[in-house]
């Protein structure tokens, strides 16, 4: 199984339950708080994604065992809900809103120009792993349409040129920023 963070794969091989890794401890806390109940599946997957940035097969296996949920059900839930991702994200993420207000405000043009400039479509990451492009169904900032989220920060009243410029800055910089 491919994994980006080397220490993550290590902590998987050692038992995540005893892992001292802060990320696993946060997942385990969620599981414990919910009394290892199967109905905490979605909460737990949220915790995994928050800790690791994505949900891989090892994590799913672990969650299935801890919550006594069938494997196929974990996979089904992780793929049914679009908020979850099974792929590691790039160093930076840009989420373009494709809600109605933003759509009327021209978010399609933004996506088109990102595709032109960086060759990525929604759900994809640039080959160097620096920038991931995602779309959202309304960020709730419709008053400022079109809106997008750059590494967790919402920005509104965007146009294609500004967005491309922002992403270009990420792509040029070393992964430090």
């Amino acid at each position: 199984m491919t994994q980006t963070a080397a220490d993550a794969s290590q902590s998987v091989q050692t038992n995540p339950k005893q892992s001292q890794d802060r990320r696993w401890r946060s997942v385990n806390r969620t599981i414990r708080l919910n009394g290892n109940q199967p109905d905490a599946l979605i909460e737990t997957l949220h915790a995994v994604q928050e800790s690791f940035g994505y949900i891989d097969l090892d994590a799913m296996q672990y969650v299935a065992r801890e919550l006594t949920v069938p494997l196929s059900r974990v996979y089904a839930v992780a793929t049914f809900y679009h908020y979850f991702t099974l792929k590691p994200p790039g160093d930076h993420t840009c989420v373009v809103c494709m809600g109605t207000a933003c759509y009327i405000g021209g978010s399609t043009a933004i996506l088109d120009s990102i595709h032109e400039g960086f060759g990525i479509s929604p759900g994809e990451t640039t080959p160097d792993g620096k920038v991931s492009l995602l779309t959202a169904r309304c960020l709730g900032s419709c008053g400022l349409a079109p809106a997008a989220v750059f590494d967790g920060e919402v920005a509104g009243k965007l146009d294609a040129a500004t967005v491309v410029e922002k992403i270009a800055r990420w792509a040029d910089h070393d992964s430090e920023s």
Partner: protein
Amino acid sequence: MTLSLEELQQIARIEKDRREGFQHRIKICVAAGCLSCQSATLKEAMEKEVSRRGMENWVDVKGVGCLGLCTAGPLVFVEPDGILYQGVKVSDAGPIIESLGAEPIDALHCSTDLPFFARQHKVVLENCGRIDPERIEDYIAEGGYYALYQALRNMTPREVIQEITRGGLRGRGGAGYPTGLKWTTVAKAVNATKYVICNADEGDPGAFMDRSVLESDPHRVLEGMAIAAYAVGAAQGFIYVRAEYPLAVKRLRTAIAHAERLGVLGNGIFNTRFRFDVRVRLGAGAFVCGEETALMASIEGRLGKPRPRPPYPAEYGLWGCPTLINNVETFANVAPIIRNGGAWFAGIGTETSKGTKVFALAGRVNHTGLIEVPMGTMLRDIVFEIGGGIPRGGRFKAVQTGGPSGGCIPEQYLDMPVDYESLAEAGSIMGSGGMIIMDESSCMVDVAKFFMEFCMSESCGKCVPCRVGTTQLYHLLCKITSGAAQPSDLDKIEELCDLVKNTALCGLGQTAPNPVMSTLHYFRDEYTAHIEDKVCPAKACKMQPAKEVV
């Protein structure tokens, strides 16, 4: 620890005194809209500026919820002077503080006499932009949790429901089901365990009312839920919030913790035997989870796929127990109704649609943001008075209400009152309150295609008509917008719309054809222009065969 009325009143008094102690109170909007214009940095700058001048004791700087006019953010409101500033930059912090008590700064001044403010009637949003959502004392100072006290100590559950029924409140989540009736059914159900759920999934893209309420005044929703729980006999509540609203989640969690600490949630509230706990559950990006049976499945940690009803949640809901499920805005109306009486509430609005409704104005309109108006307000007033009309001298074309389940309302209906029945007659629905205004630059076929794509990718995939029908419809609409369609494709579209509407399992499928049917009804000529002349009248679609013409 339980709270007594005296203690509640004392908290309110102390808070009010604290406020009086300040000569000026600067309120900076820190709801989602203004936050994305860096209002958090502005607040910091303002605080620094105040302390640099040693004015902490007579100038209060606080973050508040949405002030409504999101286009003009960041917004700053100065009390008691009553001055609203718009588009405030960090560099404006100093000058604003300097101007306190003197003439307001003209360049930033935004008149509150604008119809945008003057025409509104605030019930649900009465505290939005006035109180600090992270301080329970602020809410209590505005009369918060007094309605809960009244309900628990002076009313029987039946009387509470009667009051809600008298107010004529109808569900704000879309369908407009009478709230009193729903509560009665759950109250009647015989079971030791019952649940109350607040539906804060707000999946309609282009709507952000629930978000603003949760971010600006979370205690109001908690109080409404607690009153509802008392009325129907539940002890456990859940709030199902979309994960895309991290700020709302954070503020809700803070609010719950504060309410528990104070004793307005938890055991023996106000020295009664009533007990009520609330937990937050996160959605995970599925529109269909706004549908009540799917939402409950999701709370149970399962796939959010609707199941056939009956049985309704009121009889067989969360974990098989009778469950009351209402929208955020519905709960937000509860406390004012108990405080002021059902008759007061019934005095607002129209014969069949009582009270006010919050709308999220967006799209091609000058003043985008959040508004609250009495039911029955004319559509024209909303778009042209409150919304300030179409920007850049554009021409109004249609307003979309109800999101993917709604329809587009054309110009000839501008003089229609906005209530449940009138909207349905015009081929749309009230929905949750998203209002997207479109001008001539929007192609109605393209808009229909946009919504169909939405429904297709949000369809849970359980029933055939929705899963395959929306896909087929989407492909047909793509054919039209690319200039590859034949006249017979329009028949197929109408046929499929009828099929999906009548045979799909849940509300998502049953309403998915609405945007197509309403645009076909009012803008059929646009469809035929695409099909027969291979042109897009709004010049929005890239028509392949028409290329040589351009």
